């Protein structure tokens, strides 16, 4: 199985010299099994260059097939899709997966991104065959030789984590999520951090605990876990209501789940290359002190990892 990172940034793309090494494109990760099954997790701006590369092979002649798993539909996870060239070539088959919602139909959420007055090419003009598959929380399914497991995350409007298993290897993608300690997110807008004297209700605590153990189960024994570590401890104290984690949260989950390697991911837009380096150093120090050693790296555009049998 081959894992390639095309976009590692959260919130919005950040071009410029200060993000040159880790990259400024928003979230997109490609996973290909040895048998050639192609999975793409999230369609941030990084998916544009992936699309260009795919158009150099079978997608150019309309014979490509890919499965796009969407963690959630916040802009930084879907804004590259209208620029994904394989959509515009007849014959290509694309499958889009995301969590089922009772308030919105998945196709219409995606189509509305390509509507006037926002974009000149309407979704009806995509030439490829595009199928949408809505997932219920905790769904497990197979895509050819690949097993996919899911669980819900703690994020405004809810996000889905995915685990991908093939070729004797396992990768989990856990973004975006807050830790499972202070706030339980639903759909609602949170204008600020919760008041310190307001305690979580017993039922919220129970839900968070169940969510946390489901995430640990999803990551259990994974070779690689890609985790939303957008915040430093300080930033989390100020902005717990936006639904992102710190490296320490990711290390906690990975250590409990016996994970081999953790990839810090979804870097904050204002995090410079030097600051990501510093965050990585801190995380390695922390992970090194645990009984179960977790290897830590910081995801960057172009990172290419081979897992299991090739």
């Amino acid at each position, binding site marked *: 199985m081959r894992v390639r990172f095309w976009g590692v940034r959260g*919130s*919005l*793309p*950040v*071009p*410029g*010299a200060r*993000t*040159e090494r880790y*990259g*400024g*494109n928003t979230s997109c990760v490609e996973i290909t099994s040895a048998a050639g099954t192609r999975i793409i997790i999230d369609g941030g*701006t990084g998916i*544009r260059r992936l699309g260009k590369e795919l158009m150099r092979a079978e997608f150019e002649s309309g014979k490509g097939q890919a499965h796009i798993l969407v963690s959630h*539909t*916040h*802009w930084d996870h879907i*804004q*590259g899709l*209208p*620029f994904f060239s394989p959509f515009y070539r007849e014959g290509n088959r694309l499958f889009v997966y995301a969590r089922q*919602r009772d308030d*919105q139909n998945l196709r219409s*959420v995606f189509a*509305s991104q390509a509507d*006037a*007055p*926002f*974009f*000149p090419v309407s979704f009806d003009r995509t030439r490829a065959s595009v199928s949408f598959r809505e997932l219920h929380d905790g769904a497990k399914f197979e895509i050819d030789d690949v097993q996919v497991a899911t669980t819900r995350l703690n994020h*405004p*409007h809810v996000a889905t984590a995915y685990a991908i298993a093939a070729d004797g290897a396992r990768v989990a993608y856990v973004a975006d999520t807050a830790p499972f300690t202070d706030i339980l997110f639903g*759909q609602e*807008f*949170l*204008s600020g951090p919760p008041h310190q004297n307001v305690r979580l209700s017993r039922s919220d605590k129970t839900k968070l605990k169940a969510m946390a153990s489901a995430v640990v189960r999803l990551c259990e024994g994974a070779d690689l876990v890609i985790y939303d570590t957008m915040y430093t401890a300080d930033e989390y104290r100020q902005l717990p209501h*936006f*639904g992102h984690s710190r490296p320490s949260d990711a290390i906690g989950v990975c250590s409990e789940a016996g994970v081999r390697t953790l990839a810090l991911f979804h870097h904050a*837009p*204002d995090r410079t290359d030097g600051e990501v380096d510093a965050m990585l150093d801190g995380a390695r120090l922390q992970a090194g002190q645990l009984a179960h050693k977790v290897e830590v790296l910081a995801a960057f*555009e172009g990172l290419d990892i081979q897992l299991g049998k090739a």
Partner: protein
Amino acid sequence: MEVTFWGVRGAIPSPGPATVRYGGNTSCVSVRLDDGETIMIDCGTGARNFGLSLLAGAFGKGKGCATVLLSHSHWDHIQGFPFFGPFYVPGNRFTVIGGSQDSELLERVLERQMAAQFFPVQSYRNMGAQIEMHAGREVRVGNAKITAHPNPHGPTQAMAFRIESEGKTLVYASDVGYEKDGPTQGTLTAYRNADLLIHDCTFTPEDRAQRISRGLSSLDDAVEAAVRSNARTLALFHYDQDYTDQDVDELVARGRRKLDQRGAQSTSILGAAEGVTVRL
């Protein structure tokens, strides 16, 4: 007046080593008038860095006031809106003007970008600052007169803005696809005698010829508009997402030669680049 480029790219931000010099952020230009008024033209991802610079001053204390002009509502011109820091400071006041829309329509467009499925803040009303939407093709901001002129942009329109203040004129004309005969008399009147004409230059003439009409300009269109409207300086703008810094250098050099061939030696040319300020 002082004009600063914060985002000069079209379509989609293009981060990476190949775009570091001109910049990969989508369209955003700021104008600071001599009387201190602040104007932001378009709100692509470049707006984030402009917002950060404003937060260091009055906008960080909730005492800022600015006018936002939107040429049209394609993503690359509004996607920075949710990430413009000064919108989140209560006390700041903004007037948003999108010349082609009535104010209710403009509000609905911006609200759709903020909706819960796309962004956690859910409404621009939750951002904190006072943000008002205005329609209209003529406004006054401090001592400046601003007029909006609708240009053809594929099947839709994009506004060109003319800002006149203290004897100086700035024209911003991004996202325009002229008919075969080039800019109309009405368009040239709107552009006339600009000290700085910021003009759409998405493509080289060769690349433009290969696209089905999408309502964008080539280098030839930009030169044509500058020569016929008698611009003092032409700034190329809104480059294709795949153009590298070298490609843009080449556009500027070719633009210089084309201006000279047209006898417009006195018109200067520059390639708009993030972080560059032009004083008029």
